[in-house]
């Protein structure tokens, strides 16, 4: 049998998720994206800085792209999270349904506990 697209499609794709030992935040934690505007290659879009969301999942730990961008090895690895934000919080003039969310993958060094949120986990509330 010749291996082709069809056979490849049946094989489950390997997960790109990697272990993230020593992660600071857990699923359900309320976080805020740092409101800072440093120069250089940054992987956190401007419009999400300063916004508050909830950790949706821990994606893994990866070489830091903000260091790789300048030819360094990206070590130590940074934990990457998927963070859920309410659309009407991100966009002041958002006119869609109030339950609409935007999820974005953000590195740990861009996150801090949301104001008033104790370092705890377990909340299922959306942002």
């Amino acid at each position, binding site marked *: 049998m010749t291996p082709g697209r069809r056979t490849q499609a049946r094989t489950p794709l390997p997960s790109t998720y990697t272990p993230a030992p020593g992660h600071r935040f857990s699923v359900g934690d309320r976080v805020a994206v740092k409101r800072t*505007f*440093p*120069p*250089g*290659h*940054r992987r956190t*879009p*401007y*419009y*999400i800085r300063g916004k508050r969301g909830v950790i949706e999942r821990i994606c893994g730990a990866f070489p830091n*792209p*903000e260091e*790789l*961008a*300048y*030819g360094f090895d990206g070590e130590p690895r940074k934990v990457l999270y998927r963070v859920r934000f309410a659309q009407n919080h991100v*966009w002041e003039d958002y006119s869609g349904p109030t339950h609409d969310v935007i999820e974005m993958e953000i590195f740990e060094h861009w996150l801090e506990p949301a104001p008033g949120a104790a370092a705890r986990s377990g909340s299922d509330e959306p942002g």
Partner: protein
Amino acid sequence: MSEKALNKGPHDMGGEAAGPIDTTDHGMKFWEKQANALRSTLSAKKVVRVDELRRAAEDLGDQYYKLEYFERTTAALRTLLLEKGIITEGELRAQMAEVRARFDVPKAPASPVKNGMRR
């Protein structure tokens, strides 16, 4: 507030007013295929990283949207190869001159055959 745009890269356009999106497939020009193959090869050989290419492209600033996609990625590749000392500015200039000279053929003189044999 000027703080709004502090250190904002040209690629970071989320939330900005946007016009219609051109969804026509423009295909690839010959040089674009070659440039893309070179970029793929250098990436596969880990000579350059995608993060570096992005950074070099973002650093184009105002030039970013004046260039077409493959012009932008090629400009980024040029920056990285110079940065890493894989090529020098002088070598690149010499090679470009050499390539240009290959196409620098004199204009064909008017053909007496064509002129005289109008049907």
